[in-house]
């Protein structure tokens, strides 16, 4: 079947281009909104101050001003740096974020690529950023950067495990790796026969949800898991030699990844773009409402991530590893076993 838009028939490449551009626009808009809402305003209110107020009404254009500032700065590559690798590293980190977005559904057909193994793809691509960070740390020819990159690698690998294991519980419940099927399973599910709000997996998988959020916090290297970029001991870890637009790319990647993980979490645990099937809204309505629903859920979850980030101080390196290996991984393994048993029993 050839897809049509407003009666026009589209070739495959035209359709894909439109999907990618819309996806990019949504990603950048959400990221900018999240930065303004939480990084500029919410944290300021937590600290009894107002945050940016000058650029635009209530400082809403502050982010544009910051981007303009970073673009003007000199892009320095240190003399001893491995120049190609050094310049490539931020692009890889950013690309791993963008690719994650490709499979997150925002409506009945609003998804760039509807992969059968969607959640597997998301988790694999999020792991790709480790490569970029290691490249950055090594190529900077700076001991702080190298230490930061090694810490980041250790942390990201340690927390990748609970992240994946927490997702397994959802996959067992939904009986699918496809994100659209996971959304549909939540929307059409029922809690002991009552389908008033469907069956969002946050209710049955609350343990998995908590572990997922903790692991996401660590994957994003947000405080209290910000050992890799600890500014008081490592200056800024693997970002120490970056300046100008390349530093900006790391900045964008950090917050875009926060949005991406929040969108994944809201898809897996909060029902994604769908409203409960029993409310009787057809696909036509959900084409419009779906993206709004999933954006709202994702923005709320990013809020939780930032709330924790701006409240808690940094862990020590050994505490950080102990939390993952001795605490989160055993619990998530137990969660898988219990979910599996309950799935067979009911």
């Amino acid at each position: 079947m050839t897809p049509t838009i407003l009666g026009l028939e589209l070739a495959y490449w035209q359709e894909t281009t439109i999907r990618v551009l819309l996806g990019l626009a949504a990603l950048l808009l959400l990221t900018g909104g999240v930065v303004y809402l939480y990084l500029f305003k919410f944290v300021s209110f937590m600290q009894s101050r107002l945050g940016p107020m000058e650029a635009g009404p209530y400082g809403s254009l502050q982010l544009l001003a910051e981007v303009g500032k970073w673009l003007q700065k000199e892009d320095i590559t240190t003399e001893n740096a491995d120049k190609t690798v050094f310049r490539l590293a931020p692009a890889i980190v950013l690309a791993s974020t963008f690719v994650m977005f490709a499979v997150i559904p925002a409506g009945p057909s609003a998804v760039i690529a509807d992969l059968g193994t969607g959640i597997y793809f998301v988790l694999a691509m999020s792991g790709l950023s480790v490569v970029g960070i290691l490249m950055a740390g090594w190529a900077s020819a700076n001991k702080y950067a190298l230490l930061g990159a090694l810490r980041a690698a250790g942390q990201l690998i340690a927390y990748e495990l609970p992240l994946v294991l927490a997702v397994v519980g959802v996959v067992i419940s939904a009986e699918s790796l496809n994100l659209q099927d996971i959304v549909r399973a939540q929307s059409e599910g029922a809690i002991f026969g009552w389908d008033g709000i469907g069956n969002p997996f946050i209710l049955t998988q609350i343990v998995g949800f908590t572990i997922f959020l903790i692991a996401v916090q660590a994957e994003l290297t947000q405080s209290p898991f910000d050992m890799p970029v600890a500014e008081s001991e490592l200056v800024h870890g693997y970002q120490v030699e970056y300046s100008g637009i390349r530093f900006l790319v790391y900045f964008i990647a950090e917050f875009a990844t926060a949005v991406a993980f929040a969108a994944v979490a809201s898809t897996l645990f909060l029902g994604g773009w769908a409203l409960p099937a029993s409310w009787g809204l057809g696909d036509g309505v959900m084409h419009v409402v779906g993206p709004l629903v999933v954006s709202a859920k994702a923005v709320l979850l990013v809020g939780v991530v930032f709330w924790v980030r701006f409240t808690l101080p940094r862990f020590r390196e050994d505490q950080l590893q102990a939390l993952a290996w001795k605490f989160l991984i055993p619990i998530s393994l137990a969660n898988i076993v219990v979910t599996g048993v309950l799935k067979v029993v009911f």
Partner: protein
Amino acid sequence: MAKPQLPGIVKGLGITLKTAFETMFPDGPLRPPAPSKGAATVQYPHEKEEPAPRARGVIALKEENCTACMLCARECPDWCIYIEAHKTLAPPRRAGGKPRSVNALDRFDIDFSLCMYCGICVEVCPFEALFWSPEYEYSEVRIQDLLHDKSRLDQWMHTVPDFEPLEPGSEVKVKKVPR
């Protein structure tokens, strides 16, 4: 046995969230948000901060009281006070008396680009010639302009607030700022 307590993490999250809401809704949750009222900070160029009366803003000089004794210049840790004076004769206090020999100030400069606002000069002055003023808006484009000469220092005198009253029962009388 200790009472069961909320984990510190939850308590901390509660504190930050509470502060955020108190900043956003200073009039209570049902009133419209007014963060500019709830914030503890002041939006400086639009509204001026009211500094405390004893705030160390700038040092004022009462030129007539200065005897060029050089105590302040010698005690200054940064050596940022420059004093030059010459001897001269002042008219006698009483009619028919001998003219008095006094030091007249030629130069009394304080370099505020060096000053570290320790206040030792104000403390050490035995003749009540140096005072703290809470004025703070005297930034300059060129660093040389931060060197205030004695006429500029004298202009700060009218911004010096009266001394705070001491605690009741104090045996020392509160000094008056010479006007």
